[in-house]
């Protein structure tokens, strides 16, 4: 007969699970701290003055955030390229326009690929799949050359217009439509006399709202953070054109006489919008990442 009784076995099992849970929690809390402490130090130091920051490290916020922002605006070391409002505005223009164009045209392309049957449908999709993986770095040289030839440097056009063609997002939208878009409804709309574009605008877009929302969030964050393309196009670095990441890059490159309070405040300002968006919409975002990862 077995020596172990059910009761003690169950107790052992539960104790085991208990110990495991505690161990897991310890690790998770540790990781949470690693994720949050750098950001917390940033927030704290953005509210402290230079002399306090270099004196000691603190984890308690102070009250000088607006003094630091004032330094950014008045100190000639900073204000020749940094202006919080201008940077926010420019980044907002670029990211906002890109986001709108990407979502609308990707939805439209995916709609074309799913709803209609035409000869080049297969090849078009294969093409989109193939170019999905071409890195930006590879086309950057040619892009720069083309901008010089077309005299498009230092303009927002080459930052915004290419957003119309986003292969990865078309791919995502197509998958979404294939799995959850009833094609019968288009037939019904046709019978009721709606033309194709109207069907797309007034029936399909509202139905694809969830996919549009997720992609819009991602696209906005990605374009807000994009330093690479912006630094290629805005090559002369005129202050009134600079976006937030470019301004921040210039701030952190200051090697002498930097005002640490102002440095922290600049970095703080650049991440506030994305962090706010993230905190409010984190559920969508994490769901979106998970949905993008499932490829079975």
């Amino acid at each position: 007969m077995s020596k172990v009784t059910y009761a003690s076995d169950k107790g052992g099992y539960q104790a085991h699970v208990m110990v495991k849970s505690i161990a897991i929690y310890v690790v998770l809390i540790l990781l949470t701290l690693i994720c949050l402490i750098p950001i917390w130090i940033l927030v704290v130091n953005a509210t402290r003055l230079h002399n306090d920051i270099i004196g000691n490290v603190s984890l308690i916020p102070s009250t000088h955030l607006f003094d630091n922002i004032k330094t950014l605006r008045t100190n000639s070391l900073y204000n020749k390229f940094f202006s919080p409002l201008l940077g926010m505005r420019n980044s907002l223009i670029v990211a906002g326009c890109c986001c709108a164009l990407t979502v609308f045209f990707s939805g439209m392309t995916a709609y074309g690929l799913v709803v209609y049957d035409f000869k080049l449908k297969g090849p078009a999709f294969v093409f989109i799949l193939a170019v999905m993986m071409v890195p930006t770095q590879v086309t950057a040289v040619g892009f720069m050359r083309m901008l010089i030839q077309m005299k498009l440097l230092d303009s927002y056009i080459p930052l915004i217009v290419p957003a119309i063609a986003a292969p990865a997002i078309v791919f995502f939208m197509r998958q979404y439509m294939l799995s959850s878009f009833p094609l019968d409804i288009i037939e019904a709309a046709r019978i009721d006399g709606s033309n194709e574009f109207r069907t797309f605008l007034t029936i399909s877009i509202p139905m694809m709202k969830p996919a549009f929302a997720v992609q819009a969030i991602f696209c906005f964050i990605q374009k807000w953070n994009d330093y690479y393309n912006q630094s290629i196009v805005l090559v002369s670095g005129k202050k009134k054109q600079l976006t937030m990441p470019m301004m921040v890059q210039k701030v952190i490159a200051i090697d002498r006489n930097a005002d640490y309070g102002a440095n922290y405040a600049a970095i703080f300002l650049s991440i506030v919008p994305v962090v706010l968006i993230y905190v409010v919409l984190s559920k969508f975002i994490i769901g979106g990442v998970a949905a993008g990862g499932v490829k079975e």
Partner: protein
Amino acid sequence: MATAAQRRIKSVSYAKYGYMFILPFFVVYFIFSFWPLIQTFILAFSENGTRTPALIGFDNFKTILAKPAANDFKAMGIHKSFWDGMKNTLIIWFGNFLPQIALSLLLAVWFTDLRVKMPGKGFFKVVMYMPNIITAASVAGLFLALFGDSSYSVINTLRGCAMTKEQLLAAGLDSAPEPWKIITTCWPSRCLVMFIQVWMWFGNTMIMLMSGIQGINESLFEAAEIDGANSTQTFWRITFPLLKTIMVYTLLTSMIGGLQMFDIPYMLHTGNVVNDYIKTVAVFIYEMFHSNFAKPSFGYSAAASVILFVITSILGALVFYVQRDKDAIEKKKKQKQAAKEWKRKQKGGGFSI
């Protein structure tokens, strides 16, 4: 009977709308991405140091790939900085991928474990993904402020490098300790970049792996539990083998991403010079065409881009190979065979008559 009407309905073709809907995408793609790609290929065979280069053949590839003559200092420098870039990219990628995948996998398994009840799971996920959405420029600035060479950086302040004379006297020290120069020394700077990359990306990888694990049939885990398997056994016998595809996918996409690593290595410095120990291939390409704007070295930059393109294409093809839908391919094969069989029978039937 009503064939005329039927024929008329059938003849309404919507194909042209299909083309109209996908047209904007293709027009813009060809102008802003495909044409630059072709230009890159042309520039790879063109001269350097001018904005309007002429074709020169394979010289750029020769300089970059083969060892140039020792007395040709300029070519030597470019050759060396390309290979250093490759080396740094590989080291940093490797050093961030291994810990990242291990950590993400562990977390993903924990988060999906049915046995462990975990309140606050959503909160942890949200926090761990957060570093991924923060602007890379800001992350670089933040870590410079934390681990920078200056005695005012957080780590050096903690060590007391920024103490004033009075503080030193009070502490009974003659002089403040030398600040750590993490950013400008070889391995510390590389490790810092690796750490930042892990910090930024482990949450993302974790969520991807989690959705992979959730895709595994739950009854397998239940059966294992009933059979008395412990967590380790469940992981190695069930989760890991079934996750293989998604792991390989993560590996390959991470490699493609790793080859493009640019923001953090490029911006993790003060002043104007990028630290040589963390200069990646992407930084090499960027500096070649961007730093000397009046006389850009388009040729070298483009040649390196073409090499990068070839490598990513191979990796991309592997991704497709791994991701291919085996069942669908099998089905197609069977369908084809069935069609052949049917044709043969038809033919055979024809002969027999």
